[in-house]
């Protein structure tokens, strides 16, 4: 409750974590607001079906609020004038405002308690934050957005926030690194999916580092656990380092 989880990937694709959290929270009966900036609804829907959850049904019964970033962007650029009272969440693209306030308002309204809601805790899921930088948002605006979301979702509504970012070693993308480092300091839990340092392997797709912040105030050591994983069609298997099924 009230936790901020950061999903981070380096040299590999960490989107399997997003799919996992999406189906996990939906199955747990939470109300989820999913800001999907990179892929279409059908992509998530098909994968979720393999994991045993139907996104369309969740949307129907109001459990899932899905913002399809690609579609909103097209509506903004090619659509007719927007109706008042339904501002486009990606308004910052048109250059009229340089902050992500509209996006935050969207999140706040979707997760605010509505009459007749019987869902357990609200959850905000974002895939992925690095895209906002590519679309012209300043790093400070992105950090402000996350800060506002945290205050609203974690503190006021006692919900959870899960955000995916990309990062690279020797990355030259300073803005991205700034955002990622800042978020790392503010996270309660970091799931860091990394490609293997030794190169490509068919049986081990990567390693995941789980960093749990015990306390943000005291300088206690974070708990770090490292596992390796292999992604399959419906499932991801985790195992201790060096003990993949191919080796044993």
């Amino acid at each position, binding site marked *: 409750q009230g936790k901020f989880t950061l999903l981070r990937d380096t040299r590999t694709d960490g989107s*399997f974590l997003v799919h996992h959290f999406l189906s996990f929270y939906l199955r747990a009966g939470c109300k989820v607001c999913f800001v999907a900036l*990179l892929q279409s609804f*059908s992509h998530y829907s098909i994968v979720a079906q393999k994991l045993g959850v139907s996104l369309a049904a969740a949307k129907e019964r109001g459990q899932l609020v899905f913002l399809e970033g*690609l579609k909103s962007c097209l509506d903004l650029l090619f659509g007719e004038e927007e109706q008042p009272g339904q501002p486009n969440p990606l308004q910052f693209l048109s250059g009229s405002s340089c902050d992500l306030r509209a996006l935050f308002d969207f999140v706040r309204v979707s997760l605010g308690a509505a009459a007749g809601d019987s869902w357990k805790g609200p959850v905000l899921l974002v895939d992925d934050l690095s895209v906002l930088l*590519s679309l012209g948002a300043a790093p400070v605006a992105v950090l402000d957005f996350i800060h506002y979301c945290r205050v609203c979702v974690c503190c006021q509504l006692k919900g959870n926030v899960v955000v995916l970012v990309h990062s690279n070693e020797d990355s030259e*993308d300073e803005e991205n690194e700034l955002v990622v480092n800042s978020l790392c300091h503010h996270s309660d839990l970091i799931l860091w999916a990394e490609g*293997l340092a030794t190169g490509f392997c068919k049986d081990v797709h990567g390693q995941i580092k789980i960093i749990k912040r015990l306390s943000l105030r005291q300088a206690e050591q974070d708990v770090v656990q490292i596992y390796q994983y292999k992604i399959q069609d419906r499932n991801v298997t985790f195992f201790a380092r060096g003990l993949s099924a191919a080796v044993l």
Partner: protein
Amino acid sequence: LFFTEEDKYGLYSNLLFKYFLAEGIVCGHDLFVASAKEHPDNILKELPAPLLDDSYRKELGDEAAAMKSEDFQDSMKIAWRYQNLPKMETSPTTYTRFGHYYDVSKKMSPELCQSVKLHSFYLHEELPVEPKMKTCNMNSGYARLLQSIQRIISQEGFDGSDPQKKQRNVLRIGIQSLGSILWGDDVCCSDAPEDPQSLTKFLYVLRGLLRKSLSACIITVPAHLIQNKAIMERVTNLSDMVVGLESFIGSERETNPLYKDYHGLVHVHQIPRLNSLICDVSDTKDLAFRLKRKQFTIERLHLPPDLSDTVSRASKQDLAGSTKLLSSGCGAMAIGKKHLDF
């Protein structure tokens, strides 16, 4: 969204571009060609001719059959441990028929070209009319291209907006040399471009258009000119498939005897992971290409045996360095530079 990093002189990436368009024509897809460099009509005149199925297949079949029968009898004497490994196929075998083959030395006949609907966008011929869409601070060339694509998609019903249209077709979009100075974007010229987000915004909107309709797109970009690596990272993130072509022309690898059979390397930086948790990963990441008189092939890179008496240290180390870079290709998998020491 298939993103290709051009090789230095643009020869081979152009070839890949034309293959994509030619395949579209042969499959009956509609085409949309955009360029700021060459007039699309000229590009379309130069597409390779498709090979008639029977003759080529027979040729390939004969070759493969001959190879197979020969090797079957030999049993290995020295490297006998390798006997049990499956034979490595360097080029696609006859029974994997996906797509068509083309003869690069012949041009596609104009009648075949005209058999599909062609749309083109040549930047310098487009009217400088203010686009109806909100440009959101994007480069005007890109904005006009997007508007043109969007107009074709909705007019021709590729996005399913026309329920009366019974036969749905695919639109193949080819955009040549995006990001070059000819499009009005200085991302390829300067280290700190004026508007670094134009290209990424363009790609995002294009991605939206592609997801919303039955279309596929290939873009070639002179990536070797882009100084700002951050932009390349963002662009990789926004594309589904990213392939880089590195040709040996003019580099020291041209004379390196280890690469003598090939004309260049193919770096696969990213493969699409759509509608699934996993992606289609092949066994090897080392790919090289060569341009024969009639055919452009991409094969697994296999190094010829090192038979020279005097093995120079320099070339071995250099090769080791480059093979590490090769096998690291895919961005969805890992990049290893320092940990293998053999």
